[in-house]
């Protein structure tokens, strides 16, 4: 073999491990550097999340680093110019932070709620949440409310674990996998790794999604469901399973509240609550004594079915009885849901029976002895290898919370929760239903909150409302309009604050959220709101601070812009106190280490938060005398403790880094992480890997490391007493706060069914469905992250503009041809865009890629870039408010339980644009470039060194005949 030249000068290269943040999946990466330039970014094979692979975005990190849209210095809106006009002057960090601190100090000393601090698709809620608590404002939340709180809440109020990034299907053992409404999700690489494992093992993969692209492309069976009807489909599965007696009797009795007793006393405040004894113990029906007995007493032979009367004369039914009564009704019979869901009755029945077959006839076991919470010893873990995963196709509907519960119900009936082959929780999950943290509602000047701003209400008394019943939070989370808004309602903040409803605020800090563009519903109007002034000429929203790393649309609407570093330029933590990177069988966290020197005057937001918090004298950050407790962010991470032994990073604790999960601060922690490729993984012992909701050893450990407050069993709530309490409140029967407005009462009655339920999505209930024939939904493109990636020279070559996709036969029947320009209208507004026809699309559905459209001039792009001329956002069509009803206050377009933004409830009609009507509508003004933004190159020739060519010898050229 002819010798090959030396291609790379390895001596000049170095490799740094760190954590990717081209998206929130947070894969481990190895960055090969040549000087201060990146030669190559690859997956770290040892990393628990991505095991060496990397997605398209991760592979394009170099071009993020090269982006012309990078912010370079702090900016202040020029005095006398209008907000949104893009006139900024560069200021120094000192000036910027002085300005900010002064303003915040005043707010904190007078009325802390006048600061609202909201963060987008970030991953440092532990820090920002702590910061807000220390500041003393309850007006803090992250993106969860407009993202997927329905999945978190649906799971945490039912099984103690959830979809989203908090659990994973058991890719290694599942034999049947059902994917509900997922295009890409946060576990971007893990899902792909997992799907291949499933297919290699011959498992069946069923995809339920109105659109067949991406993951659904490789599904063995595609169910092109009509949007918003998954709950109905899931409950029809429940119907078939029950009717065919396919449910796990033991699992239900042992691990769920199915045997608990529900009081049947209509018209009273007791109705629908669970029977308790004098000491508050939940009761079951003891068949031996024919009387109630404690659920916790596992010696009791509890009835799963039955209707009983206690000696005191209380009429009760077991939860399971109520459940079968509800779901065996004809409402959920396959033939009666087929029309609505667009799925054949025979298919519904077959799928349910296929799952039952796998669960009960293809049961698997893992021969590891374990002990449950009650001391019962088990020889092995029994697995019902049916796994599911669901995401925004479910959550982004106003019936998403209940739909998510309906899906969990299918899992629970099959006994397919946290057992081998099913859906597995990732530590710190599972948690008790629901986690015992209540949202804060009391504030006082210069005082930290007593509890975190966000928590889990267990009844009306936990709402964050004043004595009048009015919302206390600026986003109206935890009010009657969204009682279980566990993640806040970021999508309502600008609207509410500008309208002064419930009150006005002074300063809005946004971190990593593009709220004037793709992250808001009703974008065009939000931009107007941001510019809106009150009668005295002041902005209704007086001061907007944005921390971003790039020239986003939101930066343009800010008063103070604090430029962040890129992910390759900073130290950072991905903490177990936050949204961790854990795997089902390991508690994990990780760090980022700076690999590249920033070439601009930028600071990591982490540093800024610590700095500003210290200046403001937060007790967690500063001493009595005002001096700083911590030198900087790195020092804070090392030495701050939430509770003794528990800090942001669980690995390498103890003085010498010898302890895991718990232990004293280790001064060499950062180095220890770097040494370990920037992550830490605590693998659960084999007997703690399944049935963790009831696994004695796991529960004891989870308590000891601070995941859970106690080590009692986690009981799955098929029947939610919490929901019933709200329902009672709606009926005026609750002993506690009661809603005043009729609409609030009715919503509690209609949507707070204690058993998983389905109802028509709210927008659909209020519009003329003949006039708005189509459902309109979005999908995430696998190669772009929201708005971030149009600035990426490589990724944008894959897609610079989007189309509205329609079912071919349906479109042609309406005279709409491929690439036609159409008007798309909703009850709220209209857009013009270009159509593309396809086969794999539910005929009643149209869809497009999310966040491809950009405002002209943003993101370092040419003002005529196709992103702004041909790309469009569906957001213009979506209103943050439901269609109005005479005499009723405007309601948020959100799930009535959780406040989750109902992006995918959108219904539209479509008509051909007139000849010559082309180009997207609406068009927005071109955003001005920022001062000191450099010109963009017309050609890019990125390379870290001169290429070493392989020379073909002239003799070979001349001598060789054909190919050989």
């Amino acid at each position: 073999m002819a010798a090959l030249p030396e291609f790379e000068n390895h001596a000049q290269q170095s490799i740094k491990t760190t954590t990717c943040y081209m998206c929130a999946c947070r894969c481990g990466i190895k960055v090969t550097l040549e000087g201060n330039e990146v030669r190559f970014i690859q997956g770290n094979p040892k990393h628990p999340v991505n095991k060496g692979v990397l997605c398209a975005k991760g592979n394009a990190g170099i071009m993020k680093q090269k982006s012309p849209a990078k912010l370079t210095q702090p900016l202040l809106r020029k005095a006398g110019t209008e907000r949104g006009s893009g006139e900024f002057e560069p200021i120094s960090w000192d000036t910027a932070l002085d300005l900010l601190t002064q303003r915040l100090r005043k707010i904190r000393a007078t009325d802390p709620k006048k600061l609202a601090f909201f963060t987008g698709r970030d991953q440092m809620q532990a820090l920002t949440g702590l910061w807000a608590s220390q500041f003393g404002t309850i007006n803090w939340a992250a993106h969860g409310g407009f993202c997927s709180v329905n999945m978190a809440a649906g799971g945490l109020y039912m099984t103690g674990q959830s979809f989203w990034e908090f659990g994973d299907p058991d890719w290694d053992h599942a034999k049947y996998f059902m994917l509900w409404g997922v295009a890409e999700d946060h576990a971007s690489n893990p899902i792909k790794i997992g799907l291949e494992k499933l297919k290699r093992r011959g498992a069946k993969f069923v995809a339920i999604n109105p659109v067949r692209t991406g993951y659904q492309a490789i599904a063995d069976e595609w169910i092109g469901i009509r949007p918003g009807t998954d709950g109905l489909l899931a409950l029809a599965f429940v119907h078939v399973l029950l009717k065919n007696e396919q449910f796990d009797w033991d699992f239900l009795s042992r691990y769920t509240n199915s045997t608990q007793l529900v009081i049947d006393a209509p018209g009273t405040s007791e109705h629908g609550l669970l029977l308790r004894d004098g000491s508050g113990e939940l009761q079951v029906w003891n068949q031996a004594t024919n009387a109630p007995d404690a659920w916790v007493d596992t010696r009791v032979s509890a009835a799963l079915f039955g209707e009983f009367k206690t000696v005191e004369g209380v009429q009760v039914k077991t939860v399971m009885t109520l459940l079968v009564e509800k779901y065996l009704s004809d409402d959920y019979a396959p033939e009666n849901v087929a029309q609505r869901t667009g799925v054949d009755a025979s298919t519904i029945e077959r799928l349910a029976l296929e799952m039952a077959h796998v669960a009960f006839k293809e049961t698997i076991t893992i021969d590891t002895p374990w002990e449950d919470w009650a001391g019962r010893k088990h020889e092995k873990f029994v697995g019902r290898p049916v796994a599911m995963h669901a995401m925004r196709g479910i959550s982004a509907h106003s019936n998403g919370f209940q739909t998510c519960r309906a899906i969990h119900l299918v899992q629970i009936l099959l006994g397919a929760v946290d057992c081998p082959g099913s859906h597995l929780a990732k530590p710190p999950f599972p948690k008790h239903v629901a986690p015992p943290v209540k949202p804060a509602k009391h504030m006082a000047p210069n005082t930290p909150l007593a509890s975190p701003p966000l928590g889990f209400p267990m009844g009306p008394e936990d709402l964050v409302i004043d004595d009048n019943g009015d919302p206390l939070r600026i986003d109206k989370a935890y009010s009657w309009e969204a009682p279980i808004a566990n993640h806040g309602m970021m999508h309502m903040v600008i609207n509410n604050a500008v309208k002064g409803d419930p009150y006005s605020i002074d300063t809005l800090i946004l971190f990593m959220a593009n709220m004037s563009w793709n992250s808001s519903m009703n974008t065009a109007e939000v931009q107007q709101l941001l510019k809106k002034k009150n009668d005295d000429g002041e902005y209704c929203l007086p001061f907007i601070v944005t921390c971003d790393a790039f020239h986003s649309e939101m930066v343009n609407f800010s008063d103070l812009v604090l430029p962040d570093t890129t992910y390759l330029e900073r130290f950072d933590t991905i903490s177990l106190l936050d949204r961790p990177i854990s795997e089902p069988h390991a508690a994990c966290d990780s760090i980022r280490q700076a690999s590249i020197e920033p070439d601009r005057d930028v600071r990591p937001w982490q540093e800024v938060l610590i700095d500003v918090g210290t200046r403001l004298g937060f007790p967690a950050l500063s001493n009595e005398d005002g001096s700083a407790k911590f030198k900087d962010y790195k020092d804070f991470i090392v030495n701050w403790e939430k509770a003794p032994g528990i800090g942001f990073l669980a690995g390498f604790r103890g003085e010498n880094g010898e302890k895991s999960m718990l232990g004293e601060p280790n001064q060499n922690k950062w180095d220890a992480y770097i040494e370990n490729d920037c992550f830490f993984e605590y693998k659960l012992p084999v007997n703690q890997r399944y049935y963790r909701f009831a696994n004695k050893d796991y529960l004891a450990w989870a308590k000891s490391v601070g995941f859970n407050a106690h080590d009692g069993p986690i009981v799955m709530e098929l029947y939610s007493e919490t929901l019933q309490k709200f329902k009672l409140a709606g009926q005026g029967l609750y002993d506690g706060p009661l809603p005043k407005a009729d609409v609030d009462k009715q919503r509690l009655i209609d949507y707070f069914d204690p058993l998983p339920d389905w109802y028509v999505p709210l927008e659909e209930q209020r519009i003329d469905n003949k006039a708005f024939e189509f459902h309109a939904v979005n999908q995430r493109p696998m190669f772009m992250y929201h708005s971030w990636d149009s600035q990426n020279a490589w990724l944008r070559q894959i897609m610079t503009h989007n189309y509205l996709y329609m079912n071919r036969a349906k479109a042609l029947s309406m005279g709409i041809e491929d690439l036609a320009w159409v008007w798309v209208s909703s009850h709220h507004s209209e857009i013009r865009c270009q159509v593309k026809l396809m086969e794999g699309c539910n005929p009643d559905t149209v869809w497009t890629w999310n966040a491809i459209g950009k405002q002209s001039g943003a993101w370092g792009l040419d003002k005529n870039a196709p992103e702004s001329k041909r790309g469009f956002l569906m957001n213009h069509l979506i209103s943050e408010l439901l269609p109005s009803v005479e005499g009723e206050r405007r309601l948020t377009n959100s799930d009535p339980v959780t406040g989750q933004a109902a992006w995918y409830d959108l219904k539209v009609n479509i008509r051909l644009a007139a000849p010559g009507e082309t180009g997207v509508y609406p068009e927005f003004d071109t955003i001005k470039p920022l001062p000191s933004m450099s010109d963009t190159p017309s050609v890019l020739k990125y390379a870290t060194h001169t290429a070493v060519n392989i020379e073909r010898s002239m003799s070979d050229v001349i001598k060789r005949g054909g190919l050989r």
Partner: protein
Amino acid sequence: MKLGLVIDLDTCVGCHACAVACKQWNTSGTTGPLSDYQPYGEEPSGVWFNRIRHYEVGDYPTNKTINAPMSCMHCDDAACVTVCPTGASYKREEDGIVLVDQSKCMGCNLCSWACPYGARELDEEAGVMKKCTLCVDRIYDENLPEEERKPACVLTCPSHARFFGDFDDPQSEVSSLVRERGGYAMMPELGYQPVNKYLPPRQRPKAPTVAAKQSEDSGGLIAKWLKRQKDAFNQLGEG
């Protein structure tokens, strides 16, 4: 040796990771940089060695979506090589990799005309033809850990839809995959004998169902369960 790739259409989700990984590696690789034109302008485009296309097979509702990544097939009978007047294009004798010697190419495009698979792209900035090198600058680099001596696209693929190996070795992973999964060549009728092979979507056997037993109405079912529960309890009592 006959080196090449196997691509599994049964697991490719069309994520473009391999395409970008290829771009990333090769822009500083032996034929780099891979130029990008108007990177932030109206018509951004550039040189890529690997492109992912998405197709639909069949009509709704029996449609299937196929994601098809394509790069150089390192054809055994590669007309791209025979047409090349300068000798810049050649197929390596030792391993069959088809390469372009960047110093010899005159940029006549003829090889790209001869390639049925769209695997060659002219770099307008450099004026020379470029194409997939099968990451020749990775796979033989002994400074890399052995398990990383694979093409960038193979290393990165999240759904493990890409395999690299020696088709001359019947024991290799690629050979056995082709054997076992019915690996096929694209557009075989042109006779280029592409080395890269594609694995068709797997045909899954029908999933079994539990026997349906919907005989009773719901009232009957609950009564039956009540009885079952009582019987079980009584048995417990007796035992």
